[in-house]
C-alpha cells in the first residue's frame, strides 16, 4: 500500500493483522480469521497475516491510523470465547503467551504505549485457545469461533467512523 495517500476511494483505512502460527494448533486462529475475511473482501481494509514477534508487529502497524489485531489467547476461559481490548485497556502480559520469544502482541502494545507509538485507533480481539500442540489444526470450539470473530470485526469496522486520511509516509 506504499504511496497510497489516503484520499482515494479504495484506499484501505484499516489494517487487520491476524497473528499466530498455523503449525501450532489453535495458535493458527488469527490466520484462519484472515483467511475467512479474505473470502468476504471487506472494503477499506487491508488484511495481513503476521507471526506475532512484537517488534515486527510494531513495524507492521506503523503509519496505520486504525489497526485491528486478532490473536489466540490463554486466559483459562472457555475455548473459542472472544474478548476485546482497546483504548486504555492494554492487554495484561501473559494472556497472549504464544508469540515467538515472548515479545508478543501484549508486549508490543505496551511497548508502543511507552514509546508513544500506538496507532490512533487500535483494538485487539483475543480468541481463547484450547490446544497449542505442534502440527495440529484448530480445535472444534476454536474453529467455530472464526465466523463469530469475523462478524464482530466487520460490525466494528462498519460502525467506527473512518479515520482522517493518513499521511503518505509509511
Amino acid at each position, binding site marked *: 500500500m506504499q504511496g497510497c495517500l489516503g484520499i482515494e476511494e479504495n484506499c484501505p483505512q484499516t489494517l487487520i493483522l491476524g497473528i499466530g*502460527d498455523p503449525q501450532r494448533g489453535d495458535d493458527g486462529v488469527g490466520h484462519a480469521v484472515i483467511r475467512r475475511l479474505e473470502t468476504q473482501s471487506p472494503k477499506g481494509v487491508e488484511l495481513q497475516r503476521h507471526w506475532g514477534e512484537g*517488534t*515486527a508487529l510494531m*513495524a507492521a502497524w506503523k503509519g496505520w491510523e486504525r489497526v485491528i489485531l486478532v490473536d489466540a489467547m490463554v486466559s483459562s476461559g472457555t475455548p473459542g470465547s472472544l474478548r476485546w481490548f482497546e483504548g486504555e485497556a492494554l492487554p495484561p502480559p501473559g494472556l497472549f*503467551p504464544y508469540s515467538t520469544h*515472548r515479545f508478543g502482541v501484549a508486549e508490543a502494545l505496551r511497548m508502543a504505549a*511507552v514509546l508513544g507509538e500506538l496507532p490512533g485507533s487500535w483494538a485487539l480481539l483475543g480468541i481463547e485457545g484450547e490446544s497449542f500442540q505442534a502440527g495440529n489444526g484448530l480445535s472444534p470450539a476454536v474453529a467455530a469461533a472464526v465466523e463469530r470473530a469475523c462478524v464482530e470485526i466487520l460490525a466494528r469496522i462498519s460502525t467506527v467512523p473512518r479515520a482522517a486520511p493518513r499521511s503518505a509516509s509509511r
Partner: protein
Amino acid sequence: MSDTRIIEVGQLARVEGEGALHVRLEGDRVAELAFRIYEAPRFFEALLRGRDYREAPDITARICGICPVAYLLGAGQAMEALLGLEITPEIRALRRLIYCGEWIQSHLLHVFFLHAPDFLGYDDAIAMAADHPQLVRDAMALKATGNRLLEAVGGRAVHPVNLRVGGFHRAPDAEALAALRPELERGVEKARELALAVAGFEFPEVTQAYLCVSLHHPEEYAITEGRIVSSEGLEIEVAAFEDHFEEYQVARSNALHARLVGSDRPYLVGPVARYNNNFAQLSEEARRLARECGLGERVDNPFRSIQVRMVEVFYAFEEALRLVEAYRPPAPAAVEGAPVAGRGCGCTEAPRGICYHRYDVDREGLIREARIMPPTSQNQRQMEADLKRVVESNLSLSDEALQWRCEQAIRNFDPCISCATHFLKLMVERG
C-alpha cells in the same frame, strides 16, 4: 543455615520451548543441577519422512521464526551436497547477504528486548523503554533494516520464500538492493554506537574454560559454510559431524544432550565460540570495535556474550553493505540437479550457533530419514555447566537475586526458551 537448598523451577510454558531447572545444593556444593528444554525440531524430523527432497528447506524453515535462514540454507546445502551441486559465487554471496539480515534481526531482538533488561535491572524491555526510549528506538530501527534485507533477498522477512535447493527462485532486483545502501551505511554507524552503549553495562565476573565449536572458513568469518572446528584443534568436514559429536539420552531429562564422542565434556556453540575460533577473520573495524568495547581476542566470561553479539551485528552490517555494493544478480538464479539416493549433510552458523542437518534420500528423491541438531540443544549441557558455576559463585545472593542471575546466565545462550522474561520460578527448600 541448613545444609540443603533446593532450587526448583516450574514448567516454562511457551511455544518455542518448555523447560525446567532443578538445583540441589548441599552446603556450598551444587549436588545436582538439571536444565531441561523441549525441542520442537523432533516433530519436524518425523514430518520430513516421505517428503520430496526439494521441500526440506521450506518445511524446516518453519521450525523457527527467528532463524528461518539457518534452516533454509542448512537443508538446502545438505541436498546440494547429496546431489553434488556446485553453486556459483553469486549465489553464495547472496546467501551470505540474507544470513547477515538474519543475524542482525535475531541478535538485536535478543540483546535489547530480552537480555539488556537483565543487565540494567529492569523486569522487561517495556520498563527499560520508559527510561531508555532512544536506546529501544535505535535498536528497533536497526532491526527493521535486518528485516528489510531479509525481504529484499528472501521475498519476505518471516519464513522467506525465495530460497531453494541450488540457489534462489529468482534473483533479487539490483535496484531494490541498491536502495538499501544508505540504510546499511547508517546501520554500520548506529551498530557501533549501540555496541559501545552495551559495553557500558556491568558484567558479572565469571569465567569458563569453553570448548568452542564453530564453522571455520579459510577466507572469511564463517557464516554460511566451512569446516567444523574446535578451539582444541579438531577440524572436520561437515559430513563427519556425527563421527565426532553425538546426542545421548540422560535419565533425568526427556531432551537429548550433545557431547564429543569419547568425551563427557560439554561444548559451546554460538557467538562466543565463533568469535573465539575466528576472531582474526573479523574485519579490521570490527576487531577495533571489539577492543574499544573492552573485549580481548578470546572471551571466557559468558556474560560478555551480549557484547560479542553486538560486534557481530556491526560486522553483519559491514558485510551486508559490502555485498550489496558488489551485488551481481546470479544468472541462472539456481543450479539444477537430479535426485540421487544417498546421504547429504549441511551446517551453517545460525545466530545461536551451528545448526546441523542430515538427510537420507532414496532414488525417487524422497526423504527417508532426517536429523537436525539445532544450536540450543547442543548448548544444553554447557548451559547446565554455566548455571552450576553461576550458582556456586553466587551462594551469598538472596534467592531473588540468584534467580535473576540464573535467568541472565541462561539468556547468555539466547536459547529459544529465553523468550520468557523471568521464566524461572525459584523455590528454596531448607532441610
